[in-house]
């Protein structure tokens, strides 16, 4: 064991900072004891008593700061301890020293040598020009902005294809390039599954499921929602497939999109047919036959796409997944308990989603059996307006649609919209609330907390009427996300929310509950 100390003259840090620092210093491997404090006589006495005193402390005054440490010199050095101290102290100051922010793309390219991707989220009417400039400079583009015209999109994508660059978007919310989540994306393990997705939360759900199954992604390329339209012709999805096929790290390719325009579907599937790597295709609710015929693997849900990609990667048998992670008995027990808690007039569904594709998935499945009113209805007569004035009947809403976000942030960023709908739409006829909770970069810092709050106040309201409320949710996130998956799940569970491992499983559980209450 070695003993050493250091003195900083006239150094003042608030008590909290000093405490945090002593705690951090104690965590350094090899450190046995560390005291950080002001150099009063009595504090120096303590240092002496603990046999931590060294000549450095001579002449110290009460207004000086000291660090005294006992440590195993084979494991660490005093320099390391002092360095760690300085890092802690300076951590905050560094963050405040503003980095230079150049005014133009050209200047940015000069300031960041070797820049290779531009992430654009400026207003749509200016975005195309900047994206074009970026492509001209040989940079890949992630275009988050919406309100870019189809003409501009086509022009940009043609240019990108010509140059072999990514032109993700417009209105592209999710991508992960070289392990770095862009815009709204989760933090995932790196691995061998490459994804090209035309739908944001759909891509998030698939990649999160892949992560939960213990595999990782090589690249996640977003194309923007219009890529598979007739006009754009799937230019970016085609380029994505080529890029992933050429990428040695990618062993399996997953394609995610709402059903493409028929001509584009044909084009994409032709490409898939030629692809030498296994391709899993989820054209959410699309034609499975055509996919099979192209030698690819069709899917029944987003979660199923993830499972099949993992199975393909591991060389396991590929089968549709239409059940639950939990056993049939456990599921039945949950359903039984939920149904038993409801009063006879509680019959309705309230789907309150923040993720668009997750809403689609719920609507498609539940819409088979029930009349569900929505802002994205299956048929025009099921439009939410048909229910205006009263909220009796099944409802499922995509709260991220323009009509709800006008003048305020997307509900994935700001949970207020959903909280309001909780108050206005979860009425006494509600049997079950179905929702999503999307984590990852770009999303709200604590979406689960906001849901828990809404659930608790709804419960209080219900209790006043002698009723209970069933809430079923899934969390689209990984244990590596900044919000922390486990913490989010626990927050929901503490509020009595039934948390399912995927959106599809949540939807299926709700289906069973609805089946029972509508008997």
């Amino acid at each position, binding site marked *: 064991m070695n003993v050493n100390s250091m003195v900083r003259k006239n150094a003042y840090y608030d008590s909290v900072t000093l405490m945090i620092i002593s705690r951090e210093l104690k965590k350094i491997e090899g450190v046995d004891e560390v005291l950080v404090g002001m150099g009063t006589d009595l504090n120096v006495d303590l240092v002496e008593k603990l046999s931590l005193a060294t000549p450095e402390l001579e002449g110290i005054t009460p207004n000086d700061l000291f660090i005294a440490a006992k440590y195993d010199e084979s494991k660490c050095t005093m320099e390391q301890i002092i360095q760690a101290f300085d890092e802690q102290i300076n951590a905050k100051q560094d963050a405040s020293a503003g980095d230079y922010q*150049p005014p133009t793309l050209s200047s940015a390219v000069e300031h960041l040598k070797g820049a290779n991707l531009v992430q654009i989220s*400026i207003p749509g009417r200016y975005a195309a020009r900047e994206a074009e400039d970026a492509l001209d400079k040989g940079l890949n583009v992630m275009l988050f902005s919406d309100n870019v015209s189809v003409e501009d999109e086509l022009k940009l994508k043609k240019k990108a294809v010509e140059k072999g660059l990514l032109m993700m978007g417009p209105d592209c919310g999710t991508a992960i390039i070289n392990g770095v989540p862009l815009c709204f994306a989760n933090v995932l393990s790196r691995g061998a599954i490459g994804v090209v997705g035309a739908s944001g939360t759909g891509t998030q759900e698939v990649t999160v499921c892949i992560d939960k199954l213990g595999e990782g992604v090589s690249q996640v390329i977003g194309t923007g929602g219009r890529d598979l339209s007739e006009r754009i012709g799937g230019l970016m999805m085609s380029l994505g497939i080529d890029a992933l096929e050429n990428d040695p790290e990618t062993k399996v390719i997953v394609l995610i999109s709402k059903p493409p325009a028929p001509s584009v579907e044909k084009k994409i599937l032709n490409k898939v047919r030629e692809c030498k790597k296994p391709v899993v295709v989820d054209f959410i609710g699309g034609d499975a036959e055509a996919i099979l015929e192209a030698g690819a693997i069709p899917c029944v849900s987003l979660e199923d796409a993830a499972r099949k990609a993992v199975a393909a990667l591991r060389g396991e048998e590929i089968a549709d997944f239409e059940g639950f992670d939990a056993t049939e008995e456990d599921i039945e027990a949950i359903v039984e308990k939920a149904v038993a808690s409801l009063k006879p007039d509680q019959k309705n569904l309230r789907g309150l989603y923040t993720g668009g594709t997750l809403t689609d998935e719920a609507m498609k499945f539940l819409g088979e059996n029930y009349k569900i009113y929505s802002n994205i209805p299956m048929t025009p007569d099921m439009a939410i307006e048909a229910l205006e004035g009263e909220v009796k009947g099944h409802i499922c809403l995509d709260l991220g649609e323009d009509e709800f976000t006008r003048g305020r942030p997307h509900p994935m960023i700001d949970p207020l919209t959903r909280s309001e709908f909780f108050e206005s739409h979860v009425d006494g006829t509600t049997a079950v609330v179905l929702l999503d909770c999307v984590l990852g970069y770009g999303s709200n810092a604590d979406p689960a907390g906001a849901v828990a709050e809404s659930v608790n106040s709804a419960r209080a309201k219900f209790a006043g009427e002698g009723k209970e409320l069933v809430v079923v949710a899934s969390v689209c996130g990984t244990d590596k996300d900044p919000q922390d998956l486990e913490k989010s799940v626990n927050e929901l569970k503490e509020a009595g929310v039934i948390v399912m491992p995927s959106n599809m499983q949540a939807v299926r559980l709700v289906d069973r509950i609805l089946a029972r209450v509508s008997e």
Partner: protein
Amino acid sequence: MKVNELFKSELKVINMGLESFYQDMKSQDVSAIHVNWKPAAGGNEKMAALLARMKSI
């Protein structure tokens, strides 16, 4: 294809627009720079048009 070069290099991001996306990059230690973007000539269309005319030389 250039995309495959990207896959093999360190990602270096120029962020233009929402600064929070830039902060996300920084918090992950991704090398990134934020463009303090304004529309050309600050959105003054007359000036932007004059500039465009001069560029057409």
